[in-house]
């Protein structure tokens, strides 16, 4: 891609790192990071590039996890089919949510998505196929395309990496597509976009469905990695967590959510074996981010390092 060699170098280095990582770090941990990174990237597509704060993204993430787990375990589908089903289901949910919520903005949008996701939570608790609070357990990973044995940690890792890269590439492409241009314009000034003849609701809806579907892909992948789908992933706290990841890394930056997800997952797993109260630490990070680093880590870096700010077109909307 165009954009100078430092960018190419950086991309190459990151890719190499990702490929070699499982030899240095624990693969399950890495896979978890990748799943959440994809989830956060999908969420960021909405908040960072369309200016819509969804407080109900857990519904897509967790809902899709159930779909993938059920399809693979109960129907014996191949993993790739399960993931496809999960993605499609999340996309469909996104369409339903979107049709209800997209006409509202800002806080209203956040509240409506929150309420709708609570409905999904209760469904997840009630529907027989989800097995209530026990969740769907012992989901077989199966063989990818009938060839690759996913119960091998490394095979699974590279599969997850490929899924993540695929999702990330799609988001990258979306942001830098004709559609992405319009999306940014809408985020910047919706009435003006309308006056130019864009039916902005449809664009926002498509962005919402895309984001939901990708969140679903992340959730489905997570179900395969952990071989379970549980209520945790549909709670509203999970919706809050993905906001935190994105905020921490930098809304509206492509790499930000990845960094944010890696940090939060690391932090959570570190805090698990200390006696520090996890929610307090997470809450404090939230507060500090909102007050001091609204741009997030990657956002701040880009802001501080002049070389990185050639074009600041990905900045999130602030003010009114």
């Amino acid at each position, binding site marked *: 891609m165009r954009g100078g060699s430092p960018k190419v170098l950086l991309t190459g280095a990151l890719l190499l790192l990702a490929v070699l990582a499982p030899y240095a770090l624990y693969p399950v941990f890495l896979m978890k990071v990748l799943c959440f990174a994809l989830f956060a990237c999908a969420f960021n597509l909405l908040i960072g590039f369309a200016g819509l704060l969804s407080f109900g993204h857990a519904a897509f993430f967790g809902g899709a996890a159930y779909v993938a787990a059920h399809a693979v375990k109960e129907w014996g589908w191949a993993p790739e089919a399960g993931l496809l089903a999960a993605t499609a289901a999340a996309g469909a949910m996104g369409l339903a949510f979107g049709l209800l919520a997209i006409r509202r903005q800002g806080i209203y949008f956040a509240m409506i998505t929150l309420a709708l996701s609570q409905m999904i939570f209760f469904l997840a608790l009630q529907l027989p196929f989800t097995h209530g609070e026990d969740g769907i357990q012992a989901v077989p990973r199966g063989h990818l395309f009938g060839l690759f044995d996913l119960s091998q940690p490394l095979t699974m890792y590279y599969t997850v990496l490929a899924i993540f890269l695929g999702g990330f590439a799609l988001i990258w492409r979306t942001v830098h597509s004709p559609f992405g241009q319009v999306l940014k314009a809408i985020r910047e000034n919706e009435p003006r976009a309308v006056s130019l*003849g864009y039916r902005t609701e449809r664009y926002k809806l498509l962005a919402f469905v895309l984001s939901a579907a990708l969140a679903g892909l992340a959730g489905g992948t997570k179900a395969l990695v952990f071989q379970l789908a549980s209520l945790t992933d549909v709670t509203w706290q999970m919706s809050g967590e993905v906001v935190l990841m994105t905020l921490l890394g930098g809304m509206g930056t492509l790499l930000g959510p990845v960094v944010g997800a890696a940090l939060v997952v690391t932090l959570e797993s570190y805090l698990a074996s200390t006696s520090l109260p996890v929610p307090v630490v997470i809450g404090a990070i939230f507060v500090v981010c909102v007050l001091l680093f609204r741009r997030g880590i990657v956002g701040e870096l880009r802001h501080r390092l002049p070389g990185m700010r050639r074009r600041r077109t990905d900045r999130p909307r602030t003010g009114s």
Partner: protein
Amino acid sequence: MTGHTGDIILEARGLTMEFKGFVAVKEVNLQVRRGTIHALIGPNGAGKSTVFNLLTKFLTPTRGQILYKGRDITAMKPADVALLGMVRSFQISAVFPHLSVLENVRVALQRPRGTSFHFWKSEETLRDLRGRALELIEAVNLTPWADHLAAELPYGRKRALEIATTLALDPEVMLLDEPLAGMGHEDIEGTAALIKRVSADRTILMVEHNLSVVAHLSDTITVLRRGEILAEGPYEAVSRNPQVMEAYMGTGHA
């Protein structure tokens, strides 16, 4: 744009807008002739912007009818009106602040292409629009700014960018809400000349307080006061109308 000048391209019949009992626009009948520059003036709060919002469907009138090229557009959505070729600018400068000047214009240029939902295509597919975008930017003297973010432009230049963006859609009817507000003298002249130039093959309805520009540019002037039409006609006639002097221009020079 082959339509002969003189026929009515945009018409409002009995247009009324009430906000919770407050009548902002009252029984306005407005006829805009094709190929003319039509100015809407009046004191602050007279309802000019509201009329604009009604004509472009950003507001739905309480009563009345809007006809565009003989077609009733009263029930249409704003984006659809724009698709029919009637595009507006805003009173408070309306650019996309964190897009570059070039991108601002390009967003408008890409719309007729129909690829705007194509999230799987590369931005590069829009590259061929660059030439046309630069032409438009040149037309409003923004060439040195082309790669800057719109947010970095001084106020007056933003208005120029807005005109360029509006022109990018090649509209048949342009509605400009105070296009010169906030511009310095030199910009005013340039922009007024630009408006004159682009009016050659289209119709322009504008709200403007700068009376000398209005006098210079417009073929017809409608004076609004408290939501109602007070007077209408060419500048000479309107400016001598005592009611207009009193309500708007002041009676001091009479």
